[in-house]
């Protein structure tokens, strides 16, 4: 496995390929157009020279890897999913020829990433998820093998031993008995076995490192992903309070789907197709989305009230704090206003100055993880 694996899905398999973006590094240029697109082949050579610390966001829906490339940050996204098909020599050869990410186990071929989605739709099935509600999926027997394979095929080999890699982990859930230790340890062990020096970072904290540079890394970072919402209150980059609630974008899709009698996938498609929370809903699905977004933001605001209110470690802040929202679930327009409204219904022990939405919500966690890895690397 080499750096080539990072961009294994080339233009010839464009539907199943990695989603690749160029994000400028310090300072992040707010006006730069970020295109979620396929990697042109001529760029392959260019990216091979990438080295140094890595930030990786392992989410319920996506895995995003970020790395510095000169002044820019290179971020690559892949679907965190798999699909199995029966083993045959011909199929295996075809997959290899087409540079599709896969591995073999127990007479089965495990197709990974976006390719899995494509195969699932061809074979009329659903993709499966190695990660559910932010943590390794206990219902999938092969979740560990799949996540290991995805990571191994997604990041390059370390140039030198003990190269820094920082990966995101969720906060301890407050609404369900679950522990992040197992999840964190598995990923850490795997990264170590690949030759890296792994560092875990709370997802909310990563968002703060990515988005609140101008505020001395002081504020509240919320990463709203598919499986969960991760929250971190940071004071000068010290994570004071971290937690998660196990509700996220998938919850919205599922609840809207079951309320209006549609497939969750259809709801997700509507949600991701320019859906706008700031305008009046036009049909039943949109009404449902409005209702369950309100529900999610209300749960989030109440959890903030409950957790911050009961923590005795919160210091006195000399000025009000910003909240920054990030993650795929805050992609629709109007999320900020919805959350603002939900916050007016609760009383927090800290004063909020403003609510921000990350410039690139899908990549903020990986970027924050990369910042952490770079910091750790420079401290040695």
């Amino acid at each position: 496995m080499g750096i080539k694996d990072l961009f294994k899905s080339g233009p010839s398999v464009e539907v199943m390929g990695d989603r690749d973006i160029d994000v400028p590094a310090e300072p992040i240029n707010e006006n730069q157009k970020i295109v979620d697109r396929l990697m042109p082949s001529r760029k392959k050579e260019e990216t091979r020279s990438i080295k140094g610390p890595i930030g990786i966001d392992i989410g319920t829906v996506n895995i995003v890897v970020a790395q510095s490339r000169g002044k820019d940050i290179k971020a690559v996204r892949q679907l965190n999913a798999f699909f199995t098909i029966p083993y045959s020599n011909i199929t295996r050869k075809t997959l290899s020829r087409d540079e599709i990410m896969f591995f073999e186990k127990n007479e089965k071929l495990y197709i990974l990433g976006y390719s899995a989605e494509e195969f699932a739709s061809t074979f009329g099935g659903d993709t499966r998820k190695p990660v559910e509600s932010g943590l390794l999926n206990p219902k999938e027997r092969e979740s560990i093998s799949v996540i290991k394979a995805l990571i191994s095929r997604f990041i390059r080999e370390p140039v030198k031993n003990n190269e820094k890699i920082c990966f995101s982990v969720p906060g301890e859930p407050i609404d369900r008995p679950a522990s992040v230790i197992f999840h964190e340890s598995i990923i850490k062990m795997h990264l170590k076995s690949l030759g890296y020096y792994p560092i875990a970072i709370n997802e909310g904290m990563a968002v703060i490192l990515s988005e609140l540079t101008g505020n001395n890394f002081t504020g509240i970072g919320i990463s709203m992903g598919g499986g969960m919402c991760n929250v971190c209150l940071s004071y000068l980059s010290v994570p004071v309070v971290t937690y998660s609630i196990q509700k996220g974008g998938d919850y919205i899709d599922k609840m809207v789907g079951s309320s209006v009698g549609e497939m969750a996938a259809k709801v997700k498609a509507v949600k991701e197709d320019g859906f706008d929370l700031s305008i009046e809903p036009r049909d039943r699905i949109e009404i449902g989305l409005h209702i369950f977004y309100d529900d999610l933001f209300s749960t989030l605001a109440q959890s903030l009230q409950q957790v911050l209110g009961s923590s005795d470690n919160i210091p006195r802040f000399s000025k009000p704090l910003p909240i920054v929202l990030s993650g795929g679930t805050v992609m629709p327009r109007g999320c900020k206003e919805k959350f603002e409204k939900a916050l007016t219904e609760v009383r927090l022990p800290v004063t909020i100055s403003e609510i921000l939405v990350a410039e690139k919500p899908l990549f903020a966690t990986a970027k924050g993880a990369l910042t952490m890895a770079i910091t750790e690397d420079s401290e040695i």
Partner: protein
Amino acid sequence: MPSSVIVYSPDEIRGRIISKTLQVKGIKNLLFTSHFEAEEAINKRPPPVIILDTKKNLASELNFLKTLSNNLLKTTLIVLSNPSDVPVLEEMGIDMVLCIPDPFDPELIFLKARDALAREFSMKSFARVLKQAVLRASRFFFRSLRIIIILAIGLAGGYIYWCISTLPKIGVLDNYSPYEASRVYSYDNKLLTEFYVERRTFIPHEKIPKHVIKAFLAVEDKRFYRHHGVDFIRIISALIKNIRERGFVQGGSTITQQLAKMLFLKPEKTITRKIKEIVLSIQIEGKYTKDEILGLYLNQAYFGTRAYGIEAASQAYFGKSTADINISEAALLAALPKAPSKYSPFKDPKGAFRRRNHVLKRMLVTGFISKKEYKKSLTEPIPDRFHGRKYKAPYFVDYCRTILEDKYGDRLYTSGLKIYTTLDYRMQRIAENAIKNGIKDLQKRGITGVQAALLAIDPKTGWIKAMVGGTNFWDSQFNRVTQAERQPGSAFKPIVYLTALNNGFKPDSTIRDKMFTYVLTNEEGTWTPQNYHDVYRGVVTLKTALALSLNAATVDLAKKVKIKNIIKTAKLVGIKSSIHPFYPSALGASEMTLMEIVYAYAALAYGSRVGPMCIDRIIDREQLALVGPSGTKERVINKKALTGIRQMLRAVILQGTARKARVINRKVYGKTGTTNDYADAWFIGFDDKMVAGVWVGRDGRAPIGENETGARVALPIWIEFMKNL
């Protein structure tokens, strides 16, 4: 470079927060979360400052704390603790100025650490230079006496150069800016209080009267204008005395030396400190005029009772400015810096009296005052009470403090801000009197232990004009305007009627006033709302139902307009507390604060929702405005509904439960409120300029007394307030 601060906190998060705050602000530090490691590091190299966090478990840190405070005499120990542990720490002899109880405030911890470090004036580098030089000199000594002499001259030059090169250390006095108290004024320019950490108000030296300066010179340094920072005659006489007594019993410090000590050194009696003091004094004298030095000294000195600086001391002991104190008073102040606690007139009046007279005697002997002035001053009494501890409009001031602390943090106490509030002190006095008289009336009826609160606001701007949060702030700081959540009873009803007006009803529309039993959806059982006198009038107009505060009719109306719409209206007019979605809420069963309901009535008065405003503007030390007037206003009631609700609230005064208010010679509007068992009595009302609300009740929610309704208890207070405006 070694770290100047060691932070020890068994709580890793708190420790990291402190460490990071210090680091970000340029103070190198080491953080330890384990006892063993902290102890090892401290023993290896004792730092100038240790921050010890005892919050998690004081009991297990006690021994460590004792060891540190006993063994590390040169280290400043800042102790963080639970507020409840403060007495234990005080008993242990921990310096309370350096004890910081929770709430956890990293900025304050930083300020304390910074101040402690600023006092730390290290002579280590000087000692090192000297040591090396002596070694080199001894080597040269055996070679050639001539070289030794040359080297000695070189060393002397080096020493002088070293002294001059350290001058920038006193350069901080150029920007001398002591912690200065912030002053809080009412809208009509009455000083309400000061916010301070150390009670310090800076006064320029030219504004300090001559006789005050002379009092200090007479007792502290009579040759001040003749020496250059060090008075050798005094030093020699002190040395002789100390040798005779075999210890340090007397200092020969000049005012300049005392200033150097206060600003840069620790209060220890050692030869090393004395040498440092002398060097610094010469530097200070070389850089500043005598008058400037005196001014700095008088503004820096500690006078006891938390008063730092002459101006704060004048206010604290005599309740007046330094510019206004007489010779006798000046003599007493001059007596204090030597031993503020020992000579305190509040602790030992006789000792203070004797010491003051000693100062007067010194003034006479040095020719600073005439015999006549001396004799007259001797007859003056010394102060017997501390001035200014209590402050005006205390509930309001505390309300402002909470808001300002959030915004300005420590700056509030240290930056000498002038805070102009919205409070009208004339109205505040009327409000306080009205509450006092209302309580007196209750006492006449044999009812005691009752609390009352009043809030008056300008409905057009949201400005708070008067706030009384209880009968005596000094007994109970619980603010019943902003903190007490109580059932408003019938005072809530106008929101039900406003909902009806918004839904097509008119003041003359009719509803049923009939006893009716409702099945409660939230719990098993039924509920039958009853009218106050158990009289039911059948069909009544909305106007009559509200004027007479008919419960049965109101619930009938609530059923018609739906409780969810009533909740919506309540939120619209600014009620933030949750309103339970059940019928009893229509009769005011959901709890809320007096402040919420008064602001809701502001919307009923003018149709617009305004938010509470207590600050008009804030001016900083450089006379720059930090905050100007601002506030939000949102139209929430349409003209038709507004006319209707005002008509109905007027009917309450003309024909309803608040007929007593007709004594006011202008159009007033309002509504009474009484809750079950007479636990709360309310009256909320308004005229063209003011909305005022009064609540009366007991903190424990026991009944005020039989038949003590809103009309009987709260309304008279409201009337007295509104009548006297």
